[in-house]
């Protein structure tokens, strides 16, 4: 059973490799009569028997017509399904415990004439073991009334790189006799960040200092002490920052910028040699601190033992820190 599953998954990987964009065609569409299609065929058999027994040509004609319709429907549902073009959009950052909203753009650059019709069903293709852990609902999208992008929800339970299962997309259009489906995989490097747990902010002054000399959170970190440079004045800045001398020289309103002292740049540190339970808790707390400090635009570094990120500020830095926390203990390649 396991072998079979592995074989199918290998086969799928070869047949429908992960990509940013999928255009459905004969290579990735599967099609088979639905349950209703089976019922429909049974009806045809019944009509055939009745028509033969009563020697009723009209009933036989009806039976053959329905049979032919079944055949034609095969093509019609394939053609409709093959009009679908999906590409993956950028997803927002996501933390453990949140739902990942995976945006999918359906036929975003195709004119209206070649749009597919009917209802589409999106579902994550989960293994048996995953199924018990992850509850995902089927997403139904009526292609005739929808707004791009289609957003799929996927609950994130573990931190780290997210291995998103394949997305099963299926449709019963036009008459429900056939089910067209495909298992799409998308290229994504989605990192699920650890769940932030609120705590006090502990910044150590030195990257490798043994003692835990921390700086109190909430102290004014954007210092007044050292003048660093001048900048065009923006409405709302305190008037006492304005470099009046420069104004007097006729250089316009300029405000003085100060930076905090060097020793106030803090390091977030992960205590090593801890049991697993505490480790997760600490990582979560660190995550919270990273988010808080970034919000306050404070310079900080992150020391995780095997990974060290130099103090910096800004979006990229925050991302780097959160990624490192998410991937701990592996160092980022």
């Amino acid at each position, binding site marked *: 059973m396991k072998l079979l599953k592995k074989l199918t998954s290998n086969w799928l990987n070869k047949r429908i490799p992960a990509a940013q964009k999928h255009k459905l065609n004969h290579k990735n569409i599967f099609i088979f009569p639905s349950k209703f299609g089976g019922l429909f065929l049974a009806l045809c058999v019944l009509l055939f028997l009745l028509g033969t027994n009563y020697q009723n040509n009209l009933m036989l004609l009806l039976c053959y017509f329905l049979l*032919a319709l079944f055949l034609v429907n095969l093509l019609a549902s394939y053609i409709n399904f093959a009009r679908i073009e999906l590409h993956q959009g950028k997803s927002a950052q996501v933390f453990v415990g949140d739902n990942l909203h995976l945006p999918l753009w359906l036929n975003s650059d195709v004119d209206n004439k070649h749009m597919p019709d009917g209802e589409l069903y999106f579902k994550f293709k989960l293994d048996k073991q995953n199924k018990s852990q992850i509850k995902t609902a089927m997403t139904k999208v009526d292609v005739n009334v929808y707004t791009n992008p289609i957003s799929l929800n996927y609950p994130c339970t573990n931190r780290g790189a997210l291995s998103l299962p394949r997305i099963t997309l299926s449709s019963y259009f036009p008459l429900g006799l056939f089910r067209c489906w495909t298992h799409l995989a998308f290229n994504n490097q989605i990192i699920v960040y650890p769940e932030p747990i609120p705590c006090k902010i502990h910044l150590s002054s030195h990257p490798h200092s043994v003692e835990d000399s921390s700086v109190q959170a909430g102290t004014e970190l954007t210092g007044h002490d050292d003048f660093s440079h001048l900048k065009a004045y923006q409405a709302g800045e305190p008037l006492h920052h304005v470099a009046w001398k420069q104004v007097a020289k006729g250089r316009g309103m300029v405000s003085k910028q100060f930076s905090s002292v060097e020793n106030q740049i803090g390091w977030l540190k992960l205590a090593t040699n801890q049991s697993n339970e505490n480790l997760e808790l600490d990582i979560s707390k660190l995550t919270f601190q990273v988010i808080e400090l970034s919000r306050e635009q404070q310079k900080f570094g992150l020391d995780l033992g095997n990974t060290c990120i130099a103090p910096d500020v800004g979006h990229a830095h925050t991302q780097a820190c959160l990624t490192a926390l998410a991937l701990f203990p592996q160092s980022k390649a």
Partner: protein
Amino acid sequence: MKQVSQALTKNSSLILITIELILVSFSLFESVLTWILLIVACAAVIRGAIHFNFHKHLPSIRTLNLLAILSALGLIYSGMSLGLLIGMVNLLVLACALKLMQVRTQKDIYQLIISLFFLIGCGFIFNQSIVYSLFYCAMCLLLLLSLACHHAPNIRLKSQFKRVFTLSLQAAPIGILLFLVLPQLPPLWQTPKSKSMETGLAEQITPGDIASLSQSSELAFRATFIGTVPVSSERYWRAIVMEDFDGKTWKIHPYRKQLRNQQLRANQEFQPKLTGTYWDYQVIAEPTHQNWLFGLDLATPNGNASQVEIFQSNEFQLISHQKLVSQYQYKVRSYPQALSTQPFSQLDQQLNLSVPKNGNPLTRQWINELRTQYADNQEFIQAVLAHFTTNSFIYTLKPALMYSDPIDKFLFENQAGFCSHYASALAFSLRLGGIPARIVTGYQGGELATDAQTSYISVYQYDAHAWVEIWQPNSGWLRIDPTALVSPDRINLGLREAMAEEGSFLSDSPFALARMIDVAWLNNIRLLLADMDYNWSRWILGFNKQHQQELFKSILGKLTPDRMSLLGLGITTIITLLLTLFFIPHWLENRLDKTQRYYQQAIKLLNNKQLGRKNWQGPIELANQVNQRYSVEIAEPFATLTKLYVRLVYQSSNITTQGQLNDKQCHKMMRKALAQLKAELARLN
């Protein structure tokens, strides 16, 4: 679950299904019980109320279960007398109605739709005329439409209809092809039939009773003649022979039935002696749910299939092995002179002379007197017949009722009646006089329609007739029709003319087209409809194994296994081709147009040479880059290509004037430039 049901009630497919159920079940009103139709109407009202938001809640499951149990009991109670087939149809309609009341999930809708398809199929058992067939076709489309609406609820109904219609049009040729080539099998098992569906001739006649048969203008059968057509007075279509008389009612003799069963078991049948000229013809009988077939005397089945399917009885009846549940075609050859040469057995003698011991004393007395007067059989018969011609007998469809001693009353008191009165009185009188006689019922006359190649006779129910056959040692069986003596018009001109004065022809159905024969254009319409109906019956309803084989023969020449398998292959190919044909629009849709294709090919060629087009580079920009980086030989054709491409794509087509190139010429030039480019690049390597 709740969400689903809410979504379903908003769906227009359910209202379509409701309409469908109403129309289909009311089209079966003859077989469906009235109270079941009422339940259907109730279900429709409930659905309508929910659809138009008059009411918000479906009836609860408990209510419905109660209703289901009650109606099941009702159906068992009233369905006992219905027979299996009609019982099943009733049950199906009832189940659909109950299901419609409680549709909650998708599964319910599917079940409902499948049941309705089946119901449409059943409809064809009861109604096979062109009008009904068209109606059921429309019903099929409606059902498919509701199915489509269910799967794409937000497409406008008009485009849904277009889609379903296209699908059906695509399916129709394949369906017809399948119908023509898939083998026509004989019935696989005996199907349930019900007594109440029998129409046409009765298996017994009681002349004193009410006249009911002659008032229907429904078709009984049609006969297509290959050679000469018999004149109206020769068209006596035999069906049932009645030899058992109890003083009031003529019946098929029970002993004959017994004998027939024995013969069937022993696989014997009567072989008539065939002499004289003959008529070849083909009969298409309307469904009667009986076994009796029709033929001019003396008829024998003609052709292999007909011989297998038809049993010939000792009384020269043609009896089908299967009941006629749908239209049935058979070939017959009739020998009009052969009736007189058939053998006459002891049994025939015995059966055809038996009379009840009592009753009709006046007739007995009269016959006794006549017989003493005329010892010779021939003279005696003439004397009896003279009674009909000398007295003022009247042919009428509205005779007085005669309950006791009906023959006495008819012969000496009322002297008015229709065919079975005359036949009954004559046969009884002759039997009293020691002459073997029996009653034959069937049809007489029919309407002849002739066109270039074929001529056919349509026989309607009002052509039903009864006459007498007597046996004489020197002349054998002989047909005597006492009605002809009294009302020659009935035989020569048909019932319509004969009843012109009395006005009783089809008096129960005043708007029947058959009554309107005097209005010329109405009559033309009637004949045209009859003609259409004839062709419909002959080619569609009557298509059978023989026709199929003839069709194959006309295609293949000879029916060898090799050729048959070739035909099978051919048909499969045709179906595949048809499907491919339907697929072409999609294929074209996916293909880039020529302009794009040539340009993309050129870029691909250059990309192999590390061109590296940037995202922001437009076509002209790119051409400039090519111009800078490559030699003239390469840059020139690419520049041409780009120019044409830009012109075809970006220049609006309205402003082209006569002097300019059209699209086709542009494509040609593009192709040329592309080839040049390819050659140059190949030379570089």
